[in-house]
């Protein structure tokens, strides 16, 4: 199932479209927050303007920073784009099946987290160091939930390939409905934590940690980094939609089906981000010490999904 040229082109196109759409999605979050605070807000395209403005500024590095600090934004964006090529977003099959395996996707996210954490230490700033420590800890806490829920979905579909899972759930080929539903709920929780928005934005806590690993970045590097973090949020929600909400996605490579799949995906994405925006602006940040309670609850729900799969419910 090595991707042929058409699939490959779709994969690259998908990655670029998601990259271009990412600032729009984060801009939407800003507008929702403003509206909830009864302000007018900066407009949907403000994040694009911010990126262009940041690109024009000078890049200032802390004196102790090494090559990891300088290279991290590029590495992060490259990794996220590679992940984006493998996820079945507009289609029910994975455009780049060799990157579209759930284990590969999880470990590519680990690559992104590795360098994000390392750059925090490399900058020599205490805020960035604490931020990267928290980022990696949250990654550890959410990993069991994510893998268990995905594993249950994969067992229902008989394969760890993301496209196969997506098709199986779309066609209703699972022999256990509640297992799929509860696995979806557990995975949604894990994705929400990965989004890094309130109440789980411990790593980039804006008031507490001066934005954590982002503290010492400026100019072009900050632009690429902010873009990459918005891209990560879009990809992560796209992953959830692609796996558990595949209704409307294209089954073949015909242009009409692809356009329809793209529109369906955009609609689902915007609805989910609207919900996320409302929820995140209504709650306060979870205390870091109590984070394990939430993540253990997530593990519990995912285990329930596993039990349902075993029993056939």
């Amino acid at each position, binding site marked *: 199932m090595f991707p042929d040229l058409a699939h490959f082109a779709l994969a690259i196109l998908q990655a670029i479209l998601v990259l271009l759409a990412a600032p729009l999605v984060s801009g939407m979050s800003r507008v929702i927050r403003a509206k909830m605070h009864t302000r007018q807000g900066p407009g949907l395209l403000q994040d694009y303007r911010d990126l262009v403005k940041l690109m024009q500024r000078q890049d200032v590095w802390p004196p102790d920073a090494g090559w990891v600090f300088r290279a991290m934004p590029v590495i992060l964006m490259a990794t996220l784009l590679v992940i984006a090529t493998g996820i079945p977003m507009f289609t029910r099959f994975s455009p780049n099946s060799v990157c579209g395996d759930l284990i590969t996707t999880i470990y590519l996210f680990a690559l992104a987290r590795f360098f994000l954490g390392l750059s925090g230490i490399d900058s020599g700033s205490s805020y960035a160091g604490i931020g990267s420590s928290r980022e990696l800890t949250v990654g550890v806490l959410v990993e069991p939930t994510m893998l268990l829920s995905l594993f249950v979905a994969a067992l229902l579909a008989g394969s760890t390939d993301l496209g196969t899972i997506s098709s199986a759930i779309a066609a209703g080929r699972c022999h256990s409905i509640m297992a799929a*539903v509860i696995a979806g709920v557990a995975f949604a929780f894990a994705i929400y934590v990965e989004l890094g928005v309130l109440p789980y934005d411990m790593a980039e806590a804006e008031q507490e940690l001066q934005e954590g690993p982002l503290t010492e970045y400026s100019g072009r590097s900050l632009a690429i980094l902010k873009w990459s973090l918005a891209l990560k949020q879009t990809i992560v929600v796209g992953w959830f939609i692609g796996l558990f909400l595949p209704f409307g996605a294209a089954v073949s490579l015909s242009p009409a089906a692809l356009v329809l799949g793209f529109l369906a995906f955009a609609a689902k994405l915007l609805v989910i981000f609207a919900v996320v925006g409302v929820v995140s602006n209504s709650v306060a940040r979870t205390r870091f010490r109590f984070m394990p309670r939430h993540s253990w609850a997530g593990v519990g729900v995912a285990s329930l999904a596993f039990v349902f799969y075993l029993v*056939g419910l």
Partner: protein
Amino acid sequence: MLSYTLVNGLAGLLIVTSQMVILAKTSRDSAKFYAIQSLVLVLIFLTLAKIQGNEELYLWSVSAFITKVVFVPLVALKVFGKLHDEKLGGGGGLPPILSIALSGVVVILCFVVVLGVSLPGAASIKPALAVSLAHFFLGLSCIVTQRNILKQVFGYCLMENGSHLTLALLASGAPELVEVGIATDAIFAVVVMAVLGTRIFQKLQTLDARQLTSLKG
């Protein structure tokens, strides 16, 4: 779409709603979740009726709707709403993760038990049967671990729902008297326990099961 897979799926939803009944913070919320759970039960009856073409089960679903979805939660909300023990507050019980884990373990054990039993014509609904057996133990665990006596009433109701489902799955051809018996059982039990709860609260000003130890020898 209408197949035993749907029945099994709804049975899984039943476990989820039972968890919500057990984990709810106040007895009013428990009553609302109980209403939702009974609604799922009614849906199961309807699906079974459609698949098996069994007229009795339509009657059962109507009676279950009237008693369990409408009447019992109404009584509970009216009576329990007036009883509120500030000192007890949420009511203790197991933390969410342990409660969910316990229900998972109970479901697996009941499934193992059910696998060992061979029943003609019931092979494809064995998961649902396991769920109905598990409800007995889930209700029991709710009674044992909750300190608020009003929540314990709901534990009893869960056990009752379990037996109702078992009957519907295995013995749906039973005479109507059985069905009437089960329906009225729920009503009478809740009414009696509501009266008892009110009297206890008036006498002792507490709803905490740990304080009710006058039978201790």
